[in-house]
């Protein structure tokens, strides 16, 4: 079920909210758990069983690690067994085809295989589970003895299928008790509608431009068209994914949870290092806490630090998808971050802000080309056209049409991806001394109605990050 579907907005969500607030407080977690299972089963009935088995295995595993904490060797044995099983399940469902395709390409024999569809959200919920298991082993959190509460942590529908990746330590106490209020519910609704608008009005619309460009015949693309196509994808993926995160955070608030911010206007960054502090924060934090720091982080020799960064970025790329272009995308950022850290940082600091913005955006756009291309060859061809090789001139009728007929949209996308709109709106509410509740209600209800108008007419548009 999609957050941006009519059935979710007008049937599922109202029903869950009503039950959640009408029933006694002690039933709230059970209601959310059942709702989450229904939500998942709606799109993935076959894989509900996989998730339930995974929950039970990790629940018992957590108990086993916790009771062995005094005996470090036994605890470590239990932890390693757990990691092997969790990573084997993730590896099998996500990487079986990738590994065998790669082997088929290298070996003289052909290995026939039976790749299964990817269970939606498996990368997200597996990482959440691992954060719990590792933190129990480290003694950072208390073991969760209440099975429904643990199951709720894994399955919570607001962030189950596309994040943010919530670390157990951040919601441990909230699972037992959390504050709900009208103000928090209102804040959550505003977050949710803002996310919905990002997805429906901005991501889907910029996605149409990208689809148009990617549908053009090879050799028929001008330099400007190629850049516009890549920019359209850059905005699509940002508004799509940050929209989903806003909706997840908003839904969390509506049920009393506080999830951490997942995006902080990444396209205003002045370096790639800054970009990754602002993009998909929950994933970067996860890799920092559970891979980078255990490897030694930056408190090691230069060579080891570079190795650590490359390992983390190789894994970040692989996490995004079982294909070499994702690995290349991850390593591309790994290499840039190493260069920034050891060479470029002093130079960048001296450059004017505008140059630093351009530098960051150009590298990010090239990164997205690696990301959206289905192969190295395709990515290389596209990047070549962006820089004039094999292009249909610098600009043609298609590029002028894409630019001028969507001029207002481009401006909205650019300003919408900066904090400017939000800050100006907040500033206006403060200075005009209007009744904030009334103004917000009018603005957000209007935004919601516009989204619904789009939703009832447009075709199915799943979130891009569902594939991860």
């Amino acid at each position, binding site marked *: 079920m999609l957050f941006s579907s009519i059935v979710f907005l007008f049937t599922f969500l109202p029903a869950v909210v009503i039950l959640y607030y009408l029933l006694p407080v002690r039933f709230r977690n059970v209601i959310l758990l059942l709702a989450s299972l229904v939500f998942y089963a709606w799109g993935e009935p076959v894989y509900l069983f996989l998730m339930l088995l995974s929950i039970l295995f990790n629940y018992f595993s957590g108990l086993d690690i916790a009771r062995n904490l005094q005996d470090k060797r036994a605890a470590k044995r239990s932890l390693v067994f757990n990691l092997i099983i969790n990573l084997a399940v993730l590896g099998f469902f996500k990487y079986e085809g990738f590994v065998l395709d790669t082997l088929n390409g290298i070996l003289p024999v052909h290995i026939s295989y*039976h790749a299964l569809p990817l269970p939606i959200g498996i990368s997200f919920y597996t990482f959440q589970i691992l954060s719990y298991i590792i933190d129990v082993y480290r003694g950072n959190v208390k073991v969760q003895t209440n099975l429904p509460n643990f199951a709720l942590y894994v399955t919570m529908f607001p962030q189950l299928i596309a994040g943010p990746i919530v670390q157990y330590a951040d919601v441990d106490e909230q699972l037992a008790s959390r504050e709900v209020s009208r103000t928090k519910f209102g804040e959550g609704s505003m977050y949710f509608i803002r996310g919905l608008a990002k997805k429906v009005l901005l991501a889907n619309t910029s996605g149409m431009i990208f689809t148009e460009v990617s549908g053009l015949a090879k050799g028929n693309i001008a330099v400007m068209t190629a850049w516009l196509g890549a920019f359209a994808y850059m905005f699509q993926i940002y508004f799509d994914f940050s929209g989903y995160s806003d909706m997840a955070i908003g839904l969390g608030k509506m049920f009393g949870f506080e999830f951490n911010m997942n995006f902080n206007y990444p396209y205003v960054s002045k370096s790639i290092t800054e970009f990754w502090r602002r993009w998909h924060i929950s994933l970067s934090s996860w890799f920092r806490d559970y891979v980078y720091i255990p490897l030694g982080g930056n408190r090691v020799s230069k060579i080891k630090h570079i190795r650590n960064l490359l390992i983390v970025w190789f894994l970040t790329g692989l996490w995004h998808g079982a294909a070499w272009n994702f690995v290349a995308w991850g390593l591309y950022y790994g290499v840039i971050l190493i260069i920034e850290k050891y060479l470029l940082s002093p130079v960048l600091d001296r450059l004017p802000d505008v140059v630093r913005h351009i530098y960051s955006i150009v590298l990010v756009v090239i990164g997205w080309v690696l990301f959206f291309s289905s192969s190295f060859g395709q990515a290389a061809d596209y990047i070549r056209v962006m820089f004039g090789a094999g292009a249909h001139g610098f600009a043609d009728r298609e590029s002028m049409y894409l630019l001028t007929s969507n001029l207002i949209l481009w401006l909205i996308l650019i300003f919408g991806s900066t904090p400017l709109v939000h800050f100006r709106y907040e500033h206006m509410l403060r200075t005009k001394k209007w009744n904030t509740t009334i103004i917000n209600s009018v603005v957000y209800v209007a935004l919601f109605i516009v989204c619904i108008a789009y939703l009832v007419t447009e075709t199915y548009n799943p979130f891009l990050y569902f594939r991860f």
Partner: protein
Amino acid sequence: MKNGKLDRINLLKYLMVVLLIIYVVFLVTQEGDNTVSVDTIEKNITKAVKLEGMKKGTTQDLKKYYSLNANDYEGISLYIPDDVMSVNEILVIKVKNESQIETVEKAVEIRVNTQEKNFEGYGVEQTKLIHAAIIETRGRYVLLAVSKDADRIDAAFKKSI
């Protein structure tokens, strides 16, 4: 494990692992081969049935009738009606990744609904064929068959994978 004996927590933990393995084996045995090309499936279908009332479609036709970009998928085979009064149609798509399946299925459903609306009320035979359309997903392959031989097309599709 205490004193070499399995206690309840470990017993349940290992039981879950065994159930996971059984479950995965079950899933794998239900699935088909994902390495077959769309061309092979197309050949098998054309061998199994005579494609009457339809002609080979292009990538532009895919865009026009299904709003799908051929480049987004690993392979496509499309046959469209050869005149305005025909509804015969075959589409086979091999997706690049499983997350695309829902998009393709939705596009196919929309196409079938549009055709249903086009012929409802005056094309009795056509409406009958559209109602009997087969939409089948196996592994990374999606099939739409609108034809009096839809079941044989479906059988050839399944046999190929």
